[in-house]
């Protein structure tokens, strides 16, 4: 086994897999089960200020986006922060941390945007012995309408202000959880850094309406004939989260700001991808809510074998390893050229490559007959190497792209030199 020990802003855990602040971490019972299963840490479900507990709907809170085999592709929820008394949570947190000293226990917080509210709750959290706090600036439903959650996260100066309060009133490391429901997430991340945040975690859930029940013509989840937008998560949001993590990871103003990645992480591969684009650890929720805590076994084993295969002795080797590959469009080499090719031995003659290219792209695949069978060939005179055919081909490795090197591109009539030339240098760019 490779060494999976993680040290995230001084918070140690036996592996980099934490459960995100969400229903799976609402109480000691669940958290203990997670630790027994092998999770490295948890971010306890968000605590609010003392007083009458938050009230959740008693109707449905979740709604799913399904694949045809009813696999859960996405999930949304309208659940609020914990609806249990503050003191109950604090006592359980203290006990769990005492019983599981090697695991990370971070407490998510959301109180009104007033200094006194934070001043009052922070010492009580610190007294539990928890390893750190995560500021919930992301929940897009319910609490945001009360001026908390995403309502704070969407205003960088509030992010900075509250982060600074937390650093002032507590010695605990502060993770600022960012909302994706914003035009450019880097502004919120920079604000967190200015406020003194030790790290950011991202992304919180995305504003969403899951579906319309076409029999009743109401949105889901439906609470007595009405629905509302909820927070969207699960495998379908992963590409969105990846982009945002990469954006912050390579932002010059955010250099040195660790990232805890969240967003559709379901297995070791997802987790490793996030770490490769700059996350130091990852948080998981929907996959656990789909399959239970036992998914941790595959995550630990898979990541461990991956590191071994890559001859990396610790997580340090993978964290950020793919960041150099991320750039802006304008810096892509416009003299790089590829063409599609079909492995005729693997081709099953479904014709999908042909019809999508013919109907929706560049008419670069020819449908013909060979030995009385349907036969598809690439027309290099038209192929722009767009990768659509490769993307839709149902057979793995049947279609692929190959690079042109010092040879004629039949489409342009020019020799492909491969010499680096990006848009900023291109003669067609009036700004160049």
């Amino acid at each position, binding site marked *: 086994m490779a060494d999976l020990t993680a040290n995230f802003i001084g918070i140690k855990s036996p592996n980099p897999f934490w459960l995100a602040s969400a229903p799976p971490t609402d109480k000691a019972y669940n958290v203990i089960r997670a630790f027994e299963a092998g999770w490295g840490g948890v971010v306890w479900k968000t605590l609010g200020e003392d007083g009458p507990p938050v009230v959740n709907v008693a109707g449905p809170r979740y709604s799913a986006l399904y*694949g*045809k*085999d*009813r696999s859960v592709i996405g999930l949304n929820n309208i659940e609020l922060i914990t609806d249990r008394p503050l003191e109950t949570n604090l006592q359980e947190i203290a006990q769990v941390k005492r019983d599981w000293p090697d695991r990370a226990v971070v407490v998510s917080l959301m109180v009104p945007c007033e200094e006194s509210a934070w001043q009052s709750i922070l010492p009580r959290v610190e007294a539990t012995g928890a390893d750190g706090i995560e500021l919930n600036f992301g929940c897009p439903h319910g609490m945001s309408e009360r001026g908390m959650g995403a309502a704070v996260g969407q205003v960088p100066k509030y992010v900075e202000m509250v982060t600074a309060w937390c650093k002032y009133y507590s010695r605990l490391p502060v993770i600022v959880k960012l909302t994706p429901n914003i035009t450019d997430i880097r502004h919120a991340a920079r604000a967190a850094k200015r406020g003194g945040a030790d790290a950011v975690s991202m992304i919180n859930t995305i504003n969403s309406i899951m579906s319309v029940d076409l029999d009743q013509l109401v949105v889901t989840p439906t609470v007595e004939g009405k629905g509302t937008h909820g927070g969207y998560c699960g495998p379908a949001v992963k590409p969105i989260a990846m982009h945002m993590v990469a954006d912050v990871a390579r932002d010059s103003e955010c250099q040195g700001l660790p990232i805890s990645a969240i967003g559709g992480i379901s297995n070791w591969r997802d987790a490793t991808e996030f770490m490769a684009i700059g996350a130091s650890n990852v948080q998981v929720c929907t996959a656990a809510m789909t399959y239970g805590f036992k998914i941790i076994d595959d995550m630990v084993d898979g990541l461990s074998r991956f590191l071994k295969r890559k001859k990396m002795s610790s997580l340090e080797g993978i964290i950020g390893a793919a960041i150099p590959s991320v750039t802006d469009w304008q810096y892509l080499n416009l003299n790089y050229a590829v063409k599609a090719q079909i492995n005729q031995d693997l081709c*099953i*003659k*479904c*014709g*999908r490559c*042909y*019809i999508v290219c013919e109907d929706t792209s560049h008419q670069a695949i020819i*449908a013909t007959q060979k030995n009385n069978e*349907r036969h598809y060939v690439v027309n290099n005179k038209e192929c722009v190497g767009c990768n659509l055919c490769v993307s839709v081909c*149902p057979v793995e490795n049947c279609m692929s792209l190959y690079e042109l090197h010092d040879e004629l591109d039949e489409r342009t009539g020019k020799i492909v030199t491969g010499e680096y030339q990006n848009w900023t240098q291109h003669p067609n760019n009036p700004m160049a």
Partner: protein
Amino acid sequence: MKQVITRNLSEATGNVTNEESSSAGCHSQFTEMHPPLDTHSALVESDRCYFCFDAPCIQACPTGINVPNFIRMISNHNPLGAAEAILQENIMGGTCARVCPVETLCEQACVRNTDGDKPIQIGLLQRYAVDTAMQAGETFFTRAPDSGYSVGVVGGGPSGLSCAHRLATLGHQVVVYEAREKTGGLNEYGLAAYKMVNNFAQREVDYITAIGNIDIRHGMKLGDNIDLAEIRAAHDAVFLAVGLGACNAIGLTGENSSGVENAVDYIRQLRQAEDLFKLPVGSQVVVIGGGMTAVDIAAQIRLLGAHEVTIVYRRGAEHMKASVMEQEFAQTHDVRIMHWAQPMQLLVEQQQVVGVEFKSTNMVHQSQEKFVLQADMVFKAIGQSLEFIDRDHGIEFKNDSGRLWVDAERRTSHSGIWAGGDCIRDSEDLTVSAVQDGKLAAQSIHRFLNGIRD
């Protein structure tokens, strides 16, 4: 015949269910060969379809059903749209979904037939769609305004009904002359019971004839109580869909002995039996033939309780008209299949068959080896021939097969008379081909009636 073994009820019901009760005289039925898909399974299976460009399954369907299109509709929770797309091309989509040898037609053409994969279950998906529509009482079709023309259809089997339905939608009045008591032809009298459970043939007949303007006259047998000239005179056009009547004989002495039966006759009795337990069932059964009828009778007689069932075919497995899937179905029902042997002699004692002597036909060994299979029941399943068409009427027959000659539009050599189904077919004598014949003939008749012959 020697009576027959005492059947152990539990053995016989191992694959025979009594739908209402197990008391004598109840309506007994076989369980289904392929259970239907439920909605979830249909969604999952439909999602496997690649929606191929110019899909080969469409070409492989004798009725040209747009398979990827209807599967996509199922996939998107639109089974009624799927059913209409199917029935537009094949009004007997329900039966064909149950009995088509899909493994040699659409499913064989499926691009997912690769080493590590299996084809889309097109037959079961088609059944899911059509059954959903039939259960919902959705008939989809309406009649065009009355054309004033009348067409006589001789035979109420798949081809005749397909033609009648299409003609009715086009506004023509149709009279179906049916020899038997019930409509449906081989769907009702000929297909294996385990393919057509729950009285499906009659339910489909009702579903098809609900279009209206189809007047079915039972007990009208061509050459018996009505002749072709009469029918031709009574209508503006005629469609012959008489099927095949006569069973081919083996040509051995003793074929009239007790225990020697035509497979199609027995299946007809089986399909109409009020009580399956009253059917005579041999203990040692030999089936002679290699087509689907041979498999159907062998599997059914085994399910009814015969102890040993052997199909004997004069050529190899690859030559059998029964598909590999059908052969495997028989074999998994404990039916033995012997190849390369032909019957030489029926062994008869006191008018009862007791065995069959065979000679090896294996050309490689040239052994001429002879052997005897003991049998108290022998089924002939070596095909049928066209029973009776008034040869004086001037209709051309094909010299080699004795079937009726037709052109691509299913026109016979006689003006105003079309033909389709088994009576024109030397091969591909499938329900689905018969339906296509009826459809094409109806379209041709319609053009003829409108004076737009091409």
